[in-house]
Structure formats: C-alpha cells, structure tokens
C-alpha cells in the first residue's frame, strides 16, 4: 500500500487577480518520482514554490505526513529544492555550499565534513571541494546543487526544471544519474519540467497541468497511451486526430465511421450514442502505411519523409486534406525500405491501438461545427 507523504488540498493561488492554481488536489506518495508536466504558465513552478514555502497559498492546505505545513516558513520545512539556475552561493567554495544547510543545523564540524564529502562523492565531485562555483561547468554546478539539497536528507526533494540549462547529451546523462540517486537515497522527488520526453522517461507518475488545473494524473504509460483529454494527447507526444462518428453500439464495442471506413472498436469509458462525433487518436507509430492497391485503408500520398536512424518518419496527405504523421521502424528484411515524395499510399492502423475521446466544447470533431455554434 502506498503511503501518502505530502498532501495538497484545494490549493488556490492568484497573482494580481489571475488564477494560477485553481483548488488543486494532489497526493504525493512516499518514495515516488512524480513529475509536474505542462507548458509555461501552467502553474507547475508556482505549485513547487508553494510546497517549498516561497509562496503562500490564498486558500487550501499542505500537509506532510499529517503535519500541517501551510504556514511554515521554508527554513522549517523538511524538504529541499534544486533550483533551475542552481542558485549556488558564488562567494563560497563547493564544500561551503554543500555544508551550508548542515551549518544552519549547527551540526558538529566533524559530522559536517563527513556528510559533505559523502554527498560530493555521490555526485562524483569529491575532487572539486575547494573550487568556486564559477570554476565549474554547468553539469558540475548542477551536481553541486543536487548534493547541497540532499545532504540534509530531506523527506522530499523539489526539482525546478533542473536540467533545462544543460545541453542535450548532458541532459540524458543527468536524467539517468537523477534516477539512480533517487533509487539509492529513497527520497521522494517532485520534478518540474515542460519536456514531455523527460517526464515520461523518468517518472513513476506524471501530473499534466494546464491553467492551474490537473488534466491527468497517471503513470507515463497511462498518460501516453490513454490521454484523458485532447490537451494531454496533444501535449504529450505527437498524435493524429481522425474525425469519427458512431455508427452502431454493441456490447463492449462500437462501430465507428472514419473517412468512410467502418471499424469496430473497443467501447470507450465515456457514454456514447449513435451518430455522435468523436476523436480517434492514433500515435504516429500506430499508423500502418499500406500499398495503394490494398483493400482497406484511406488513400493519400507521401508529402514528406524524414530519415531518423531507427525509424522512417513520414507525412501523408489524405485525399480530403488531413495530414497524417507516421513513424515506422526499419525492417531487417527490407533495409532499403523508403518512400518517394508524392508516392500514393493507403493509411490504416491495427484495431485496438486507437484511443477514443469525446468532443470538447472548443474542439469539435469537425472544424466547420465551430462556426455553426
């Protein structure tokens, strides 16, 4: 059974009359790696700052294993933060930076030295103790910031887009390293990012935020394969949206008309009625590109091809103008597999790989419906 460590209830925060968080509820489990994911301005950083105590909520409470933290100043909260731009103290050596939190606790000198050395060894920086922050590379500064935050053995570590200032390769390395640290330390990580790939690859659970409201909370797989709404579907990964219409309803299945194809699909969780328009979502890797002579599928032609090394990504224009993204793995039997631009093809998918979502008020299935309303 998962134990709740930090519980946020009905958190509301406004800045100059603009609602940034709207009575948000979230339970964070002990020992998990949870990611707050969303575009800039979605409230993820504000949420983190509320947890750290740098901002005060207009309403709602924050409790840490049953203890109310809502009015506690940051220095008395048993959690630490890794800042986006590291926030290392420029006038102190690496050692003094990491020792700062322990000195505040008035620990004995010997203990401070031991624990700082241990924390720096953990991030492989034990040889840099005497350096000043500006003598380190970005990645090294990042690791000092992490060591400084974990040396106090917090219950919870808050990370505010900690990898956004690093280059791609270093980012990948740090992602792996952060995961390793989290496993070894057993500390709960709350990670903020706008990078969906990072969120999917690192987290146990992902919170998708938009306009201060939780859009979806689930495992990376759930968020990617079963998005709760169109926003999540669009924000996390690439998605093709096909307009569909319910033809008939059976037990556990429905027949949907997509581009004139009648496909029998799994019945979705939301209520359906005959004639109802709905979105049929397909990830590029779920798309099958078929020979134009094939009986099933929708006709179109290749307008773009993109060699990606392990996959061949293509853009297909269907005859009605819909654009479809397809991503196909190379087949060992056919290493020369490729498309010509303008080549006629047919598009289909494997039954059961689609995901259905209902219409949303501002996003009807058929775009012309918007003007009617």
């Amino acid at each position, binding site marked *: 059974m998962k134990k709740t460590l930090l519980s946020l209830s009905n958190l509301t925060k406004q800045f100059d009359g603009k609602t940034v968080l709207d009575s948000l509820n979230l339970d964070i489990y002990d020992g998990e790696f949870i990611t707050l994911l969303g575009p800039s301005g979605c409230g993820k950083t504000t949420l983190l700052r509320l947890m*750290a105590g740098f901002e005060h909520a207009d309403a709602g409470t924050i409790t840490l294993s049953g203890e109310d933290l809502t009015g506690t100043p940051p*220095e*008395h909260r048993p959690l630490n*933060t890794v800042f*986006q*731009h590291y926030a290392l103290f420029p006038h102190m050596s690496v050692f003094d930076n990491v020792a*700062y*939190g322990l000195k*505040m606790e008035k620990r004995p000198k010997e203990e401070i030295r031991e624990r700082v050395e241990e924390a720096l060894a953990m991030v492989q920086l034990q040889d840099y103790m005497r350096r000043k922050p500006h003598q380190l590379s970005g990645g090294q500064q990042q690791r000092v910031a992490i060591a400084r935050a974990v040396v106090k053995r917090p219950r919870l570590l808050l990370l505010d887009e900690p990898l956004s200032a690093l280059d791609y390769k270093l980012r990948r390395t740090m992602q792996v390293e952060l995961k390793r640290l989290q496993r070894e330390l057993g500390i709960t990580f709350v990670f903020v990012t706008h990078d969906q790939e990072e969120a999917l690859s690192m987290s146990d659970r992902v919170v998708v935020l938009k306009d201060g409201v939780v859009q979806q909370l689930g495992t990376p797989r759930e968020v990617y394969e079963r998005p709760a709404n169109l926003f999540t579907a669009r924000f996390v990964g690439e998605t093709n949206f096909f307009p569909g219409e319910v033809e008939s309803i059976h037990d556990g299945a429905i027949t949907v008309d997509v581009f004139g194809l009648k496909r029998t699909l799994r019945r979705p969780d939301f209520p359906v009625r005959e004639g109802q328009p709905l979105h049929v979502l397909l990830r590029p890797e779920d798309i099958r590109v078929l020979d134009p002579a094939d009986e099933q599928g929708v006709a179109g032609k290749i307008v773009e091809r993109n060699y990606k090394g392990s996959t061949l990504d293509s853009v297909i224009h269907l005859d009605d103008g819909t654009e479809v993204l397809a991503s196909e793995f190379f087949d060992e039997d056919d290493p020369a597999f490729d498309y010509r631009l303008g080549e006629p093809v047919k598009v289909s998918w494997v039954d059961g790989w689609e995901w259905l979502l209902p219409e949303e008020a501002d996003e009807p299935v058929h775009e012309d419906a918007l003007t009617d309303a």
Partner: protein
Amino acid sequence: MTRWLPRAYLVLVYLLLYVPIGVLVVFSFNDSRSGYTWGGLSLRWYQSLFNNNAMVEAMWNSLWLALSAATVSTIIGALTALALHRYRFRGKKVLNGMLFVVMMSPEIVLAISLLALFLLVGIQLGYVSLLLAHVTFCLPFVVITVMARLSGFDESLPEAARDLGASDFTMTRTVLIPVIMPALLAGWLLGFTLSLDDVVVSTFVSGPSYEILPLRIYSMVRVGLKPEVNALGTLLLVFSLVMLMLSQWILTRSKR
C-alpha cells in the same frame, strides 16, 4: 599614412589629462619659491606643509568627515536600496525619484536649502552640519550603485539559503551582504571621494569650529598660491591612488 593620426589624438588627450597633474607633482619638489622656475630638488614644501598646523588639522578633519560620511551613507544607502529592491510599498516611486532629484539638482540649491534647514532647526554649523550635508549628497550615489548590483542579483540565492534552513537574518548576513559587498565598497569609495573634494555645499554649512581641507586650500589660493599646495596635492594624489589600488585588490579577491 593615417595610422599615426588616431595615435597622436590619443597622446594629446592623455597629455591634457595628465600633464597638469605631472607638473603639480614635479613642482612640489621644486626648491624655488616661484611657480614658473626650477630651483633644484627639495622637500621644503612638504616640511612647511607639516609645520602648518592649521593645514594638518584641516586635513585630518577632512579625512574624518569623509570617512564618517561615507560610512553613514553606505549603511543608510544599502538599506534603502534593499527596501527599494525587495518590497513593494506606497511611495516607492516617489522615493526613487527623490534620489535622482538630489543627485541632479544644482549643488548650490542643495547648499542653500541645507543651510536654511540647519539654521531653522538650530543645528550648530560644524562637524554635525557638514556630516548631515555630506551624507545627503552621497546617499543617492550609494543607493544607485547598490541597486545596480542588486538588479543583477539572482533572486533564488536568498530562497536557496532559506530553503537550507537559514532565517531571514542569517541569510542576509551569510549570503546577501557578501554577494553585494563589491557594490557596498564601491559605494563607500564613491561617497568618500565625493565628500573629500566637495567645496560648494561645504562652504555654506561649515563653521569656524571645523575647518576642512578644500575650504582651507580655497582660502589659501585667494591670498596667493604657495608651493605648499603642490605638496598637499601630491600627497592627496598618492593617497587616492593607494585607495584605488586597495579597492581593486579587494574586488578581484572577492571575485575569486
């Protein structure tokens, strides 16, 4: 062909800047009484300078005044800058604007108004009135220097300190002040030099009980220039060079 032109121009500029100072230094060692003829090397003007009790006293007065005015204005200025930087409060814009008013208004206006104020309130003209006046005109420079430093200050540093368990006071002592130290030093030095060579305001608000160097020199010049002044000028030049080097040394050390 035209390559020598910019160089010649540069040389000319430097000559204009430094020749008068060079002449002053050289003539401070001149044995001759006249300011135009060279009478051999001598330290007699330095000797007569140090025998001139009124002059030496004025020098100490000036140094003490500059020291205290710079220190007081740095303390008040740093706190003002912090308040302007950190908090939003009623009258913030007015306060900000007033600093510029003090800085931009003609010195003579400041001098007259300060004199009127001191007479009205009944402050004896002397050290206290000089100190108050000097702090007044040094203050905006300190505030602006510190504000400039604070504007480039990473706002997450105080948060990081609080996050690691420091109270607001401890954070200020261990993080904020050390980080803005170069600006505090620069502001202090600026105040020090401004105070040391001020004539206009000082003329109005000083009294017979406390004579300061610029006024002393000014009164000496009126009765005829004595080469003693050259010696004094040279000493002040050396002093300010030492101060400058000291501040540079402190700044480069703090960066490391």
